[in-house]
């Protein structure tokens, strides 16, 4: 069934249609929430809350935008609120739970693990506004226009935030940087 039909049915109170929408989008929604919050429980909580709010607000959804970008807007707002509520000294992430798979090539895997931790740390150090645009661009592959719709800002703001975010990331990831070049 087409997505707009599912939206229409959900709007009419068809919960099964909304369940299908959740199943289609839960993977990306959870990944965004997790990458923003770095905590599985918080990410699950925020993603579920975003879907529930989307359900109750379906009357406000206009078919001009994609359901995905509309949902991401709700999700990103909830995750940003959560990030701002966290005290700086309590990042709330569960990096401790990340396991290093030793596998057949321990040296390479350790290096990749270290790289991932470095990148995660650098992204987590960004202010929520910059972090959001980087995640939506680099990991979700959204266009500037789509990001603008999610964060409700002009495309110029998206461009500017990405520019500043990348400058900061370049500075903080310098050590990996030199290794790459």
């Amino acid at each position: 069934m087409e997505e707009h039909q599912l939206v229409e049915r959900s709007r009419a109170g068809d919960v099964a249609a909304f369940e299908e929408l959740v199943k289609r989008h839960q993977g990306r929604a959870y990944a965004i929430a997790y990458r923003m919050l770095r905590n599985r429980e918080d990410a699950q909580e925020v993603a579920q809350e975003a879907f529930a709010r989307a359900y109750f607000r379906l009357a406000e959804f206009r078919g001009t935008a994609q359901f995905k970008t509309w949902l991401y807007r709700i999700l990103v707002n909830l995750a940003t609120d959560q990030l701002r509520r966290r005290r700086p000294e309590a990042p709330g992430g569960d990096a401790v739970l990340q396991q290093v798979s030793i596998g057949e090539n321990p040296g390479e895997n350790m290096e990749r693990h270290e790289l991932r931790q470095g990148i995660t740390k650098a992204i987590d150090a960004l202010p929520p506004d910059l972090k959001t645009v980087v995640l939506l661009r680099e990991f979700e592959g959204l266009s500037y226009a789509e990001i603008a719709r999610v964060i409700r800002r002009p495309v110029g703001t998206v461009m500017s935030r990405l520019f500043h975010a990348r400058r900061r990331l370049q500075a903080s990831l310098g050590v990996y940087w030199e290794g790459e070049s």
Partner: protein
Amino acid sequence: MIQHRRYRRSLSAYVDGELSPSESGQLEVHLAGCGECRVQLERLKGLQGLLRQGLKDPIAEVTPVLWPGVRARIEGGRPIGRFTAWIRQIWEATWEQPRVSLAGAAVISVLLLTTVYLLRETPVATPLGKTIVAELKPGTAEVVVEAVEPELDFGAMVLTTSDEAEGLKVIWVVARGEM
């Protein structure tokens, strides 16, 4: 120099393929002659690769089943807004602490009484039957107020007097406090 800075800022959008063909064309002309921007472009491409390679996070890609939690929220009814939640929180906190609730009630009472006192209607003596000095043609004369429309919306009152010389009824619009 300003142009150089502008081009440098647009490199990030260029890497993302978000510049228009004409903007890309102009930037490429600049890149051909600017070593600093070429280095920066390579760094941006490297950063992009690094991010995509480094953030293949297995935890983010293992999605828990969200539907039962979403369904429970839907069945629980529309979530309350932040303001309502805030009021509820205050209500619960004060309910649990009688001293706080008593103090709160006292403050609210004082505020209410002060508001009522400040907004109370100031009694206005009706000028009905009162003799007033009015400017009537050809000069001033003492006239008696015969009728009063108490108040208009903008705080004025309408008085009616008679001008015996002209044989006319005169209607006065008087601002409150002028009498």
